[in-house]
């Protein structure tokens, strides 16, 4: 886990981005520590807010020179609505960087980056790192509608290999990101896939990548109360190095996991062979 910084960060930019809001926050010390795949949490309201739980967002960009961190915020409920309404000059309680980032290749690789909605946010700095190491990247960016896509232009600025997919056909191909996936992996001869988006998408992407023998790193989305590793709410069943499955925290052990190690079919259950399941009355 990263060494996080807790700070009152000033909003220096707040702009719409399709269906989302892009917030740029001044947090120089935190920005220096960010790696692709890290996330940040924001508190909602001040010290007397009735909404206690921090909201987690993957970090879109960290600019060390400007001392800023850029987040993409989607409105889901009263908490995110309040954050979306932040204005330049407001101060937000920020904790960043959090989580375990994407592993970076040592040399040149061909990587396919797959995202659903604003799940693409952390993939652009990752793509830059992969290219810096002499590798090449391709993108599949999907969403329900055109407005819910994020970063299509940013992807095109990095590579010619960008596929856009929307469920309603309002932009690019019609359907799900998984439909052109196998073909795209072969087309760019990808040896690794990095995926970020809703859990059913990550499960499907992992399955297709595995069939083709391609390594697949997934940045999971689980609801978190704290984001820093102390509440134990964001767990999911993952197979450890020792072959034993455990409930591990997506905030500190993740959010990036080797997709092949995540027991996607068992999310929301206590599998009988999970360490400690017997103590819950679950029998194998």
């Amino acid at each position, binding site marked *: 886990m990263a060494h996080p910084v807790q700070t009152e960060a000033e909003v220096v930019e707040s702009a719409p981005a399709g269906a989302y809001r892009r917030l740029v926050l001044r947090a120089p010390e935190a920005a220096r520590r960010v790696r692709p795949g890290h996330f940040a949490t924001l508190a909602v309201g001040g010290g007397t807010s009735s909404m*206690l739980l921090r909201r987690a967002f993957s970090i879109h960009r960290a600019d060390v020179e400007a001392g800023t961190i850029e987040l993409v915020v989607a409105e889901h409920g009263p908490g995110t609505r309040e954050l979306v309404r932040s204005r330049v000059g407001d101060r937000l309680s920020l904790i960043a960087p959090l989580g375990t980032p994407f592993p970076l290749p040592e040399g040149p690789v061909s990587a396919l980056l797959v995202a659903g909605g604003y799940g693409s946010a952390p993939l652009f700095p990752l793509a830059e790192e992969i290219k810096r190491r002499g590798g090449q990247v391709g993108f599949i960016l999907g969403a329900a509608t055109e407005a819910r896509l994020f970063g299509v232009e940013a992807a095109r600025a990095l590579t010619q290999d960008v596929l856009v997919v929307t469920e309603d056909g309002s932009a690019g191909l019609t359907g799900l990101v998984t439909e052109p996936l196998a073909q795209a992996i072969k087309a760019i001869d990808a040896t690794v896939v990095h995926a970020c988006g809703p859990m059913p998408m990550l499960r499907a992407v992992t399955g297709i990548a595995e069939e083709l023998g391609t390594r697949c790193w997934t940045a999971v989305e689980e609801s978190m109360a704290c984001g820093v590793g*102390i509440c134990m709410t964001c*767990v*999911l069943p993952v197979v450890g190095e020792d072959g034993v499955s455990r409930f591990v925290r997506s905030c*500190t052990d993740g959010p990036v996991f080797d997709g092949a190690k995540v027991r996607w079919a068992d999310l929301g259950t206590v599998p009988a062979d*999970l360490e400690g399941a017997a103590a819950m009355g679950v029998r194998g």
Partner: protein
Amino acid sequence: MEPQQVDLTAPFGGRTLPNPLTTASGCAGYGRELAKFVPLDALGSVTTKTIMPYARSGRATPRMAETPSGMLNSIGLQGAGIAHFVKHELPWLAERGARVLVSIAGERLEEFAEVAEQLNGQPGVIGLELNISCPNVADRGLVFACNPATSYDVVRAVRRVADAELPVYAKLSPDVTSITEIAAACVQAGADGLSMINTTLGMAIDPVTMRPALAGTTGGVSGPAIRPIAVRCVHQVHAEMLAGRIPRVPILAMGGLRTGLDALEFALAGASGVAVGTTLFNDPAAPLRILDELRTELAARDFTSFTDAVGYAHRPVS
């Protein structure tokens, strides 16, 4: 009175802690992650997540739902067990100078005793907190703290095997008809202190799925929403102690503590120590802020020490 002149030291068992603040069990893990935000030796003590004799996966997700001024959780006491704790977590805590109050539990009396025994003579341990009140057990009938006789039995079984120098605190549930009756049973059984309160049983329904929001259906409510319940419990039990109906033992208060003023409120109600829980999820650096605020609030009321404020709300009307 200057805030920095206020004496925050607090007696705990046979020792004196630098201040009365600890973490509430289940809200700080085993300290490693919290240490990135606050030096653990700056806290009076660190209370661990509840430890059982064996590894326990805890419940399925979703395990959490936000509620007004609080949250619901149904973790289900996930943990790797006492052997792992003693080997991997406790030495780390001790090296950092943390004074550790270990929260323990078992499904049977013997299991409480088994865990307690393994903590005798371990470095860093300053006391045991018996979690006899977790609402996230499979069978609500297993909540020992809902019954004076079972509460008595657990405390007795642990007090019998635990090192005599380790104070044993019983953690009580607010979900009972008479918390003073349970408190009395625990003290009679040899409890050296009482922790109040554990989360209170609650539930939320997801408006999208129109099903219970938690996989475990019900969960424990925590956060500022339950603070008035906690203050009431502390006040009630302390009043019984002052009236001589329960032998006097220290009370460690927790339940929605967010500011120094909240800590003072618990002290005035009769708490000799306070714990910060759910607030850590919102603000992991809260302990140092709360201690600063507590100093200021005490000074503003001309208290020269924290202990002078303990039980102050009970003084007779003049």
